[in-house]
């Protein structure tokens, strides 16, 4: 029996499934939460967060630094990817909610030498994202979800194909249906709320994977990790408990978050000018100074800088070959060693070759090993036709 039929039958009238058209909700513009777009900092000027406090707007990564970077600093590359499907509309009581399903893949690849690039670890999860009302009798949420998930898997297991291929639902997530205007006022509010739950699960998995790398002593001063996207995680956007989440924050000493999409007006420079102009005028291989950025909730501070990767006139826009780099400051008020920032920057410039030109529109500020990790993650998806046919 398919999942929708099972839910209807098992619910004995609690839920009705309308079997509406199944949709794939995938392009980035549907994301409710773009982690790379933080609210602009409401400060007159930002603090420099590197050991060299000189008030220069830009720093050139020189040939000497580039030479030092010929021994690669980065050995690990981490990326997460998700697909969200709207599989039905489900009526609970007298209200109708979207019934979402998702697949998340979080992968980490390790590079041993120029030619050896392998998977280090990969996690794939198939998730259901249902409205909180689905917990019809207001049972304890975690127990309800776990038990319902088991029931569904038991039913799915009766299908030989599903059993042979080891496909199962890993987790049921319940998305909030009230409590915020974003949810109640927006016509896509429920859908966004459900998608956010799946997204949170992905970022949680990313953090757990970083934690695992640290636990296994994979990361050290000679083996850094590049995380695709921002490393500023917000505990309120997590499906983990606050305690679990707080423990994960200490793992980021050797992790650099690299974002391709960013809001150039996020910060003001030390003079109080908008940084976007400095970023746009960065010369090849130049970086901005490192600036401090408090994490939301004020639990920790980040250091961030912008770097132009390429020496070329072929860029589409002045931002297309610039990346935003982030690192966690170990203590509030701390700074990053300027030499380390330069070496990291030089390494990032070297990681920009080869390019994924022709494969990805973001080739100009994509880093090749990150692109490979992303490709690897995507290759781990279960075919979407199989997923949609479970419902």
């Amino acid at each position, binding site marked *: 029996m398919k999942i929708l039929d099972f839910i209807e039958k098992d619910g004995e009238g609690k839920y009705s499934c309308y079997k509406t058209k199944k949709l794939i909700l995938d392009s980035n513009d549907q994301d409710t939460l773009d982690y790379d777009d933080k609210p602009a900092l409401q400060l007159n000027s930002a603090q420099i967060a590197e050991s060299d406090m000189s008030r220069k707007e830009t720093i050139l990564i020189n040939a000497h630094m580039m030479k030092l970077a010929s021994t690669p600093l980065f050995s690990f590359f981490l990326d997460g990817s998700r697909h969200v499907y709207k599989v039905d509309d489900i009526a609970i009581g007298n209200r109708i909610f979207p019934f979402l399903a998702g697949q998340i893949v979080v992968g980490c690849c390790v590079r041993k030498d120029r030619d050896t690039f392998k998977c280090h670890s990969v996690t794939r999860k198939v998730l259901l994202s249902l409205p909180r009302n689905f917990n019809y009798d207001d049972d304890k949420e975690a127990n309800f979800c776990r038990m319902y998930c088991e029931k569904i898997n038991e039913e799915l297991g009766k299908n030989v194909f599903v059993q042979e291929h080891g496909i199962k639902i890993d987790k049921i997530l319940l998305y909030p249906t009230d409590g915020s205007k974003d949810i109640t006022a927006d016509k896509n509010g429920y859908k966004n709320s459900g998608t956010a739950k799946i997204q949170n699960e992905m970022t949680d998995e990313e953090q757990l994977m970083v934690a695992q790398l640290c636990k296994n002593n994979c990361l050290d001063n000679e083996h850094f990790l590049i995380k695709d996207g921002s490393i500023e995680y917000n505990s309120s956007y997590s499906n983990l408990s606050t305690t679990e989440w707080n423990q994960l924050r200490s793992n980021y000493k050797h992790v650099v978050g690299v974002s391709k999409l960013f809001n150039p007006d996020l910060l003001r420079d030390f003079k109080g000018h908008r940084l976007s102009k400095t970023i746009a005028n960065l010369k090849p291989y130049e970086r901005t100074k490192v600036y401090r950025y408090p994490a939301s909730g004020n639990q920790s501070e980040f250091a961030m800088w912008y770097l132009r990767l*390429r020496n070329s006139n072929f860029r589409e826009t002045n931002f297309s070959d610039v990346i935003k780099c982030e690192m966690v400051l170990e203590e509030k008020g701390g700074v990053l060693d300027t030499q380390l920032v330069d070496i990291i920057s030089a390494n990032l410039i070297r990681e920009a070759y080869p390019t994924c030109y022709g494969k990805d529109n973001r080739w100009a500020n994509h880093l090749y090993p990150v692109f490979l990790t992303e490709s690897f993650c995507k290759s781990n998806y279960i075919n979407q036709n199989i997923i949609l046919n479970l419902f």
Partner: protein
Amino acid sequence: MTKIIGKVSATESSPSTIDEFYFWTDKRQILSPFDIVKVEHECNSTTYGVIEEINHVTDSPSHFTSYISSDFGAIDDNVGNMNRLGMNYVKVRVSCNTQNIYTPVLNDRRVSLCDENDIKVALGLSEKDVQNPLVCGYLQMYQGDASIKVPVVLNSHFLLGPDGAHINVSGISGLAAKTSFSMFLLKAIQEKFRTENNETVAFVFFNVKGRDLMAIDEPNTELSGKDQKIYSDLGLSDQPFENVRYYYPYSKDKITANVQSYAHPDDVKMQIKAGKAKKYKFTYEKCIEKIDLLLANEDDSSGTLESCVNYIINRQEPFNAVDSWPTLLEKIDECTKTEANGGKKNEIMVTSWRKFKRCVKKAIQSNIFISNLNEENGEIDLTDEISNNLTNGQVMVIDIARLDDNAQSFVFGSVARAIYDMKLGAERDNIPDKVILFVDELNKYASNDVPKSSPILQQLLDIAERGRSLGIILFSVEQFRSAIHDRVKGNCATQAYGRTNAIEVSKSDYRYIPKVYQNMMTRLSPGEYIISNPALRSLVNIRFPRPAYKQYPNG
């Protein structure tokens, strides 16, 4: 356990099929076309395949990407911290499955190199597959530590009958080593065939260039230890041919030891003294029935020459009392005269006789056409020699290298006819079961340009089409296979392709050979052949050692 080198990759655009599949492998894994790989398949069976194509791909969708990736055209080594993701994918042609399961091999199944036994199974060379084995070389597979040598054995029933017969060897001059390969095979047959098949075999070779084959019973003193080892690994001795007789065309010239040959007169004298060599001649008396062979290269679409030939063979007036070549010419001369000039009335037109005269006169200029033959002087008639003296294990080497084209054709035609006649009707009890006729430069006798009415072509067609049942086996050699008459090469069960050129492989003869193998044919090194035989499951790239008989590198 053999080395696992990759996994099957079946995609929408390149699926696995019954005939072929693709697998990916590390870009540094060295493989070659003709290497054999195996894949685990259903029901614990193994599918074997022969590598056809090897491609290296990266994730770069265009050359432009590659250019940009090298920092917009920088030619420094090692731009960036890593190399672009790349791998090799390999196209494999399925040769067999151990349980005859021919459903396509499945995606992600592991592909590994083979050991010697695997290779034998894959190509149909295992003892179970090959009855009546006859070694025809060895194949060398893989490189480095994994390299292995496997002897290639053919079922002699597919080479020498009854299941298939005749071999055609092609390849360009010099680089293909066609004669050496043929001689290697023939030597293996002489050494093994009788003992292992209990049948008798005799050999007739034509020496067409220099003195190539005029010392095949003398050892090759320059044979390297490596080659000696190959002979011993293949179970063969590195000794030259045995029981060889040389036949030189007669010459009036005493300085050349009365022979027309590129062989050194002293060598000829020594061979004659040792009773190994004889001189052959053609007297009119013995040749009257085969005068047609003199005209083999003449175009005779209207049949005029043929009618003259029949006239003479039937001994019609004035040829009823002719007994020698000069008299024949005189009598033909008579026929060329019109009645007005004192000639006699004749049913064939004078102009036809004149043409006939021109052709015959030209043809019998050679010293081998002579009136007297004295066996006590070591002179023989080849037809008699074949019908009376060709016995098991014997090798007749007939030297025609120094004769002109007409005489060469005549000798070849007479010998082929003599063998045919011997197998059909000679009355002696030691006629060999098989007679192998080795013809170099087959294009001279059976090319597409040879007149269709040529008696020699007809003789060759007869041998190619009916020789198998009579036990006459044709080992033919030529430079360009495409130039040979379809019915001759079409009847050869075994084909050996040596090095050739790009123009030749573009011809229709090579159409069924995969492109990569075609290109390989233009790069084969001397001593390397691509063999096709009905008993083999695939084309096989073989090698063979240098000849075990005396070589004359400068001809």
